[in-house]
């Protein structure tokens, strides 16, 4: 993440000035990560696409509000996270954010089982042993390599708490991993 920050800040400034190619490059840089972030929580391709679309449409519509001192990806994740909460509230009117920071874990879908390799299936099964918040913190830390400060801003938790979650999740993974 840090290595991208210089280029990102230039692109963000250019995009804020209305340079569409800069906005396009930012979109290309982060669309996969945002989609993955959403997909891992919805486990439904069409829903993940809808929420990813909503995230980027909202982000570019309000891009002038983005603080250039921050990184873009956590901001996009935050928008995606809010879109997910709205989605779950529509799906399940009694949805409580306190009880379900994330959508309930589901078993891998038949499509996932069919298309992923044995190694991935194993990793996915392992990941599913974690609760939604642990899964989110682990993926933000290992896949996106966000700092704990950025993870805290996405998950609405403190930095220290995010560290504790990551540590606890990794211990859980080790215990669950087949020897």
């Amino acid at each position, binding site marked *: 993440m840090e290595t991208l920050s210089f280029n990102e800040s230039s692109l963000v400034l250019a995009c804020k000035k209305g340079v569409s190619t800069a906005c396009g490059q930012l979109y290309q840089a982060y669309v996969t990560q945002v989609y*993955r972030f959403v997909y891992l929580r919805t486990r439904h391709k069409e829903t993940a696409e809808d929420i990813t679309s909503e995230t980027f449409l909202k982000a570019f519509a309000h891009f*002038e509000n983005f603080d250039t001192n921050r990184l873009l990806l956590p901001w996009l994740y935050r928008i995606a996270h809010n879109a997910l909460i709205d989605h779950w509230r529509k799906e399940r009117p009694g949805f409580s954010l306190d009880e379900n920071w994330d959508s309930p874990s589901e078993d891998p879908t038949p499509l996932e089982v069919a298309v992923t390799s044995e190694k*991935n299936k194993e990793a996915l099964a392992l990941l599913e042993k974690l609760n939604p918040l642990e899964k989110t913190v682990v993926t933000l830390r290992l896949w996106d390599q966000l700092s704990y400060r950025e993870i805290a801003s996405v998950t609405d938790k403190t930095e220290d708490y995010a560290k504790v979650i990551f540590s606890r999740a990794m211990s859980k993974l080790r215990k669950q991993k087949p020897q």
Partner: protein
Amino acid sequence: MKHLSPEIQNELHTLGFEVHETDSLLFLEEAFLPRDEFVQNLEQKIFTAPKKLIPTVTPSPWQLFFSRSQALAGLILIIITAPLIFLIVKNNYPVQPKDTLPTTNTLPEQSRDSSSLEDNTGAGSISPTEKSAPAPAATQLKMMSAPQAPTFEKVRSEAAKDFRTTIENVSVISYEKKTWPDACLGISSPLKGCATVVTPGFLVTIQVGTSTALYHTDTEEKNIRRE
């Protein structure tokens, strides 16, 4: 596969992990990819949407302030200059051209006193003793666009001397526009020679008591002669 940053590697070591233990998780990241078609369609939707989604340059508060100030100043300028422009246009294109002015002016009976003169060009009554009295806007416009109604102050003053009375007792009954053939206003004196200069002026009929008299004058009443 993505390499973990040294910071995260150190953290994993601290937690008692070997880096390779996370390999399967890192591989898994690459299993969740969006469809290319979706990515392209969304990009098209964002950047070619009817409502422009990419940000436009927002004017700064200073720019907004100056643009609003300029608009306000422009409005004030228009408000101030509009009547002036209107008057200038009116002056250049008078409602009643000079050529249509009547050459003979007969003052109505009731206004044949010393205090006011009725201008039958339609300009209303003009009091010779109250030149600075405010007049309605329409009257002022007419006065500016048409030739000013003569008051014949000096003619009346001259007549007052001739009849040994006060100016208040002298009334102008009528006046007529004339073009006198010489500087003597058509009344030549055998003792004095007159320059043969065509002189525009008036033939003014005055009344003092029951007597009437005719006076010749130029337009500025510098030269006044009794017939």
